[in-house]
């Protein structure tokens, strides 16, 4: 690529040195930015693949792969600063912060911050470790998405360490690895009896005073855990203490703080921690102090109702505080909403809501009977449901994954979000096969189609009917736990359980979250499991995604699937997660739409963001430079310019920077058509894009509104301001950046009469549709490109293809196909609803059939 680019330059400058000499340095820098970005992207893709679970790797690998990546991005940034005249100094600072974070993770060192208390609005993207997962995510909702959350501050992990040290607990914790119940109880007591370092108390006092100023003297707080990783890959749902209604005084908050921190060492919680590779004492805990919401109603949103209903979300709601819903103790209202540009109430089921949790101030938080008149009333009106759904969609789009969100509405009908974390959703399974019917013949059915499936799966074991929580320790390995209610306490038994079935419960409880995390087949709200099933009886549970539940008497071998998924188990490996977390500062792309306000240097949070930002601005800087050059010439010589605006009979505007021999005419300013293009490779790819049938103009309803509006906006902007589509072209070379909505295409090609000099580099990234469909589009493109002999690398929504050494005619033919593919796949992902569709469409495309339908 290097070679070919410079050949392009030499051509221009050799022929017309005066015309372009002002651009030389910038072209060189621009080329180096692209080159560095390409290398960084490839290193990133490679790292993502190797750390993804399919490879055995060690820390040496992560170190060296990161070093390669860092060197590429640093080089790119150096040239970018040269190109833009150091216009974006923030990028250098952000890269340094990313590097510090990654180096610290590689060496296993903790946070180096000295802050003890941080108010939510001051929490920034690189402080997840310092404030813990739960604080971090909630703050992000307000700071980035501008959604309503209560006033709050975090007590950091640095404060946690200071507290432990002050009470001489550090060494004691280090020796807790194999600790028994007594040792844990000892630590809990020591924490509860502990004192506070002076600076801790002072920082807390200052924060509380600030809160009282804002909320009034009677304000009360919810003091809750925010451990490292909490609400990350694992929810820790219900694992730690939350103290509600805490007065805004130092003493009260300190007492609550100790209770929360002590809960790290509760038996149930330590078994969960062990399951995730944390020996007791290893996990650090930040704490959140969040203003209490006087909730009229509250509940939980799942932004994906189930694996089969990804286009719908479910909102459960109960009167009073959310505890009633998350503890699964009341029959809540359930609203189903069809997602989309305008969310629509799809169905609602009003629950009996016999009990509610209320805040009686001094008298505490109590569970009471719901007044009879209030029970049949819906907790939410349609407008409130839709508003919650809108907010939930915003959150899901931002985090790019299904979410589990807690919310509350106060007496003044103000809505607050209290928590957001990733929701595990499974791909739907095949059901109802003949083989299954055969396998179950002869086995009596004990229970059929009762209850709600929390986690699907087929499993067998002996029934253990739990009458009292004390019996948890007595459950034999491989049992199926059957209980009246669900409970977060069951977590301590999860490593040995094959399944959980309850009489009463909801799929939105803490226990439910944890069963999904560990892929334990679970059914709640069967109504009668404890009376129908006998203690000690051998049974087989089949819980289907569609909600089918069957319990057979005996062990139905034919139904039992393989063990839990490897992916689910891999996540439980601490070291594996730790290495993977490094990717958080590398791979996610937050800066998507360059036309939005958020497309700013200070919004970059990852290496990928830096690459994206630099690419965009590098192209702009180059165009501006060429434009200036053109104006200069116009002024002095009245005609020649290197910059041309290309008008095509398809909705694509493009700027062409002529590096020499890439453009025929002498037209200036006004838009000119395809015929003016002289560059061989640019002509070839444009010819493909313009081929009949390839470019479909009709929009796709769906969530494509974003995509379409992205395009319209781009087209509305006068040429000079819209830097999205730019081609640098000489007679035999082109480097073209194309953007459609959220898709970015990059083509770099040299196409001459000497085959060994010829190459095509093609990169595609992005997509606005759901991640599965995006990956399918990549698969489709990969299938087509592979047919043409490209060497390919694909990961998530990134595809890189290379090809070299072909004759001019062959390259032209492939570019024509590539042009067609770019046009064809532009809006396709919305339609790629199955893997079969990918193969069908790829085959058709190769036969010249561009119909988009299935």
């Amino acid at each position, binding site marked *: 690529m290097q070679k070919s680019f410079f050949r392009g330059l030499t051509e221009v400058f050799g022929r017309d040195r005066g015309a372009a000499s002002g651009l030389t340095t910038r072209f060189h820098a621009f080329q180096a930015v692209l080159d560095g970005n390409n290398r960084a992207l490839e290193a990133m893709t490679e790292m993502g693949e190797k750390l993804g679970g399919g490879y*055995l790797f*060690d820390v*040496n690998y992560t170190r060296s792969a990161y070093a390669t990546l860092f060197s590429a991005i640093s080089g790119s940034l150096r040239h970018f600063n040269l190109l833009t005249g150091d216009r974006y100094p923030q990028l250098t600072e952000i890269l340094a912060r990313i590097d510090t974070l990654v180096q610290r993770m590689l060496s296993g060192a903790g946070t180096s911050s000295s802050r003890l208390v941080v108010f939510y609005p001051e929490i920034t993207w690189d402080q997840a470790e310092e404030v813990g997962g739960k604080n971090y995510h909630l703050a992000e909702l307000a700071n980035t998405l501008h959604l309503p959350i209560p006033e709050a501050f975090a007590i950091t992990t640095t404060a946690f360490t200071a507290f432990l040290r002050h009470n001489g607990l550090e060494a004691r914790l280090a020796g807790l690895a194999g600790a028994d119940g007594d040792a844990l109880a000892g630590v809990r007591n020591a924490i509860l009896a502990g004192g506070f370092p002076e600076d801790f108390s002072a920082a807390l006092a200052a924060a509380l005073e600030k809160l009282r100023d804002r909320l009034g003297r009677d304000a009360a707080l919810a003091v809750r855990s925010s451990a490292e990783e909490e609400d990350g890959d694992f929810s820790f749902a219900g694992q730690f203490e939350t103290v509600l209604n805490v007065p805004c005084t130092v003493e009260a908050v300190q007492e609550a703080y100790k209770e929360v921190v002590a809960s790290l060492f509760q038996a149930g919680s330590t078994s969960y921690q062990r399951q995730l590779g944390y020996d007791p004492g290893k996990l650090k805990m930040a704490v959140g102090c969040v203003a209490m919401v006087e909730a009229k109603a509250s509940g939980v949103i799942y932004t994906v109702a189930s694996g089969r209903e990804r286009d719908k979300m479910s909102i459960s709601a109960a009167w009073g505080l959310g505890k009633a819903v998350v503890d699964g103790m009341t029959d809540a209202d359930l609203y189903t909403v069809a997602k989309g540009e305008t969310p629509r109430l799809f169905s609602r089921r009003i629950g009996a809501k016999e009990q509610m949790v209320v805040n009686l101030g001094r008298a505490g938080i109590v569970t009471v009977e719901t007044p009879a008149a209030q029970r049949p009333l819906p907790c939410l009106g349609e407008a409130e449901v839709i508003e919650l759904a809108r907010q939930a969609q915003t959150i899901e789009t931002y985090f790019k994954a299904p979410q589990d969100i807690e919310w509350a509405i106060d007496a003044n009908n103000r809505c607050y979000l209290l928590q957001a974390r990733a929701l595990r959703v499974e791909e739907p399974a095949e059901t109802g096969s003949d083989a299954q019917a055969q396998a179950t013949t002869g086995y009596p059915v004990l229970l059929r189609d009762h209850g709600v499936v929390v986690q699907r799966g087929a499993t067998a074991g002996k029934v253990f009917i739990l009458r009292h929580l004390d019996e948890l320790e007595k459950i034999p390995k491989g049992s199926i736990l059957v209980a009246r209610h669900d409970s977060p306490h069951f977590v301590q038994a999860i490593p040995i359980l094959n399944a959980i079935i309850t009489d009463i419960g909801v799929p939105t409880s803490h226990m439910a979250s944890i069963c999904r995390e560990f892929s334990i087949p679970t059914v709640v709200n069967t109504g009668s499991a404890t009376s129908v099933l006998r203690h000690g009886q051998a049974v087989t549970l089949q819980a289907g995604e569609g909600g089918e539940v069957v319990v057979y008497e005996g062990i139905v071998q034919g139904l039992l699937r393989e063990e839990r998924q490897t992916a689910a188990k*891999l996540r439980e*490996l601490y*070291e594996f997660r730790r290495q993977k977390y490094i990717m958080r500062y590398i791979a996610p792309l937050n800066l998507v739409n360059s036309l939005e306000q958020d497309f700013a240097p200070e919004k970059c949070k990852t290496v990928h963001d830096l690459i994206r930002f630099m690419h965009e601005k590098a192209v702009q800087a180059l165009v501006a430079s060429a434009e200036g050059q053109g104006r200069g010439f116009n002024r002095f010589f009245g005609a020649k310019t290197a910059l041309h605006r290309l008008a095509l009979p398809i909705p694509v505007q493009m700027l062409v920077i002529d590096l020499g021999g890439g453009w025929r005419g002498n037209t200036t300013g006004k838009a000119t058509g395809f015929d003016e293009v002289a560059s061989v490779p640019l002509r070839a790819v444009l010819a493909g894009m313009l081929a009949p049938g390839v470019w479909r103009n009709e929009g796709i309803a769906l969530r494509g509104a974003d995509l379409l509006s992205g395009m319209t906006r781009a087209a509305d902007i006068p040429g000079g301001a819209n830097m999205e589509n730019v081609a640098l072209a000489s007679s035999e070379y082109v480097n073209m950046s194309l953007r459609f909505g959220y898709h970015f295409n990059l083509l770099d090609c040299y196409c001459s009469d000497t085959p060994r000099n010829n190459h095509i580099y093609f990169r595609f990234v992005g997509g606005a549709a759901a991640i599965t469909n995006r990956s399918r589009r990549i698969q489709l493109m990969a299938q087509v490109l592979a047919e043409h002999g490209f060497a390919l690398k694909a990961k998530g929504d990134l595809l890189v293809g290379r090809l070299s050494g072909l004759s001019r005619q062959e390259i032209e033919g492939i570019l024509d196909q590539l042009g067609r593919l770019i046009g064809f796949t532009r809006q396709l992902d919305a339609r790629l609803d199955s893997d079969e569709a990918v193969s069908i469409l790829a085959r058709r495309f190769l036969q010249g059939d561009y119909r988009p339908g299935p």
Partner: protein
Amino acid sequence: MAKHSIMVIDDEKIVGDMAKLSFEQDGYEVETFLNGESALERLKERRFEVVVTDLKMKGVDGLEVLRSIKKLYPGVKVIMITAFANLDVAIEALRDDVHDFFPKPVKIKELKASVKRALGEE
């Protein structure tokens, strides 16, 4: 039928953990060790059908493990994995009858296929 047994030796815990998880998924019995010394101790007590070992470890390294195993149990197949692949070492390992040799990161699928071949299952 008894499960096939595999020993995995690597001084980084993550390698042993991931290998154990992957092999157990396929129904093998797996024991992992963080250094050559403890692995050789264990080998005095029992035989494993396949040994997967890191090459470069402090103390007893992969080549030493290989030689000791070949002395104790000539039939046991040894698969070597290493981040520092160099031809000389590979040749040396081949002389000592190593079954297979992989650079790290190693694709788990390929490692599993190699184990299958070692067990004569493929």
